[in-house]
């Protein structure tokens, strides 16, 4: 039963490709379902902003060509998919000679660094708090204190980020207001840079950790309570095992499993939330690229960043899905 079979792995990998395919199809078609094409809406936005655009007809024609908007829709779509396969995301409209992929190659490591650290910390803290809340034998004093930490965590990422900037960067001046590393620090594998990068990452990471802890704790609490009345726990108690052993090895171990599914599920929203945190801190990751794309009306950049975010999230989900059956033998993947 269960376990990691060859067929399961194959299915998951196929699912990964299908996911990326559907995702990129959505970002290709939905904007084209909207009335008007992107180029003319871009022009009209420019007009709204600066009042008048010179040679708008020529700009439209040139951009149409660059977007590949001149052929029939299916032809555009096939060309688009072919480009994605080779990770060719085109040129950035505003920083012309630079390709979108170049910009992303610079931004992605920052996002991966910030997100992985913040997510892992939040997962550990949140689940521990939730497990203790759902556990009958947790000391009462602790149970009275813990919910308060959770109530504060129902504040969204970016709102807490604004508050943190105001208090710790603007008010107390303990941390930098923005950026990924200090001015005058050269990027590379030197201690100065690492120190500066970590220092700049503290506030954004804190915003993500504090705010996403609550979700984990809430889910974990529910699962712990379900596990609490399972027969194997009664047996464990009857055997006279130490409470700490019952808590960690019997209850938490079982309750934690669905949390891994939840991790795969919430990755998308964590990525979305961190987009805003990066934008607020001017942190040089994907979120900031996104914002630059929005401000500069850089559609190829927006679409490229969106595609890479979809792909990396799908990749992370694939990894979690591959680990999951190793952890939970109760779920059987065989067809019955």
């Amino acid at each position, binding site marked *: 039963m269960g376990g990691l079979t060859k067929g399961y792995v194959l299915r998951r990998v196929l699912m990964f490709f299908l996911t990326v395919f559907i*995702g990129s199809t959505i970002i290709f078609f939905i904007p084209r379902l909207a009335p008007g094409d*992107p180029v003319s809406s871009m022009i009209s936005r420019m007009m709204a902003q600066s009042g008048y655009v010179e040679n708008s007809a020529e700009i439209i024609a040139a951009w149409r060509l660059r977007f590949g908007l001149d052929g029939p829709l299916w032809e555009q779509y096939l060309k688009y998919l072919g480009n994605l396969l080779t990770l060719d995301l085109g040129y950035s409209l505003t920083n012309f000679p630079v390709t979108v992929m170049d910009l992303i190659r610079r931004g992605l490591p920052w996002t991966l660094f910030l997100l992985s650290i913040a997510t892992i910390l939040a997962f550990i803290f949140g689940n521990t708090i939730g497990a203790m809340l759902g556990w009958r034998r947790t000391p009462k004093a602790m149970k009275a204190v813990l919910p308060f930490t959770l109530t504060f965590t129902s504040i969204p990422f970016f*709102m807490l980020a604004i508050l943190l900037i105001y208090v710790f960067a603007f008010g107390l001046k303990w941390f930098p207001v923005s950026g990924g590393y200090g001015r005058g620090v050269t990027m590379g594998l030197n201690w100065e840079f690492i120190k500066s990068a970590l220092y700049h990452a503290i506030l954004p990471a804190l915003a993500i950790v504090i705010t996403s802890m609550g979700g984990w704790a809430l889910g974990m609490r529910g699962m712990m309570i379900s596990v*609490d009345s399972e027969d194997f726990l009664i047996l464990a108690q009857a055997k006279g095992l130490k409470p700490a052993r019952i808590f960690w090895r019997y209850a938490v171990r079982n309750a934690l499993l669905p949390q891994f599914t939840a991790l795969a599920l919430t990755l998308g929203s964590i990525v979305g939330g961190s987009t805003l945190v990066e934008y607020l801190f001017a942190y040089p990751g994907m979120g900031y690229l996104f914002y630059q794309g929005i401000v500069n009306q850089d559609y190829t950049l927006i679409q490229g960043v969106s595609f890479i975010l979809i792909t990396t999230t799908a990749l992370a989900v694939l990894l979690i899905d591959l680990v999951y059956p190793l952890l939970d033998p109760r779920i059987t993947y065989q067809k019955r």
Partner: protein
Amino acid sequence: MATSTSAQTGNIDNLSTASKGLSLNRFDSPWLNPKFVAGCILLLIVLLMSLLGPLVYDTTKARVASSPLNLPPMWMEGGSPAHPFGTESNGRDMLAVIITGAPRSLQVGIIAAVIGMSVGVVLGSLAGYMGGWVDGVIRTLSDAIITIPALAVLIVIAAYVKNFELNTMAFILALFAWPAPTRLVRAQVLSLRERGYVRMARLSGVPPLEIMLKEMAPNMLPWLAASLSGNISGAILASASLEALGLGPTRIPTLGMTIYYAIKAAAIIRGMWWWWGFPILTLVIIFVGLFLVATGLDEIANPRLRGASSS
């Protein structure tokens, strides 16, 4: 259904409290759960403010250039009683902005979450219980959409579409609100159907629909309640995030839009905390209210939970 659950609830409560040697007041209604009540009060405050606010306060002051610029709240030096929460750099009165903005946020959140949740529960139990190709199709779809960071796609859409209506936004958000409940319900059903009592019911020839409703649904209720409330916050958050990036309905001053203007005008490092502080506070009251309602509902729906908590 409701009566049978509450009867059961009473029994189990009796057992658990009796075993702990505590007394149980039989007139205690589970609906008087302190968290649930506190959450409802918070949400009611926001609701009342947005319903009664326009009657007692001049909301036309939410328009640009209707008030003096950059006034701090009235209790600070330089504040004026005519603008209790102060004004921002475009001449909007903050209190008026909040009164008109708050109901928009609630509206978007509730529409998107209710659609998403209903679709999710139906598809999730179908997929989990039926298995086979039904499961395959539903899972493939939800898998694909769930792993897509909704905000990333919404940004792409909003960047193309010029005029974003509030309800359009809600429907687009709903597009991304159903896969989460679908997948979690499915996982629960998958896990539940391996349990002894469900196998027993299946072996005794109970029809699938009855197993889902009678054996599985009550076990998923606490989780579903929390999830719905979480979904509402999620949708409100997504719309506010989009607005905070400067994308979204521009005609009405929504809370997220106000935050966007504040960020753009560097209100954070200018010390104008009331500009971003009040919209955020309003949203946080909504989020905390929803959170408390979710936990409260959990405890009301799930007797085991009340057994575990000391209250």
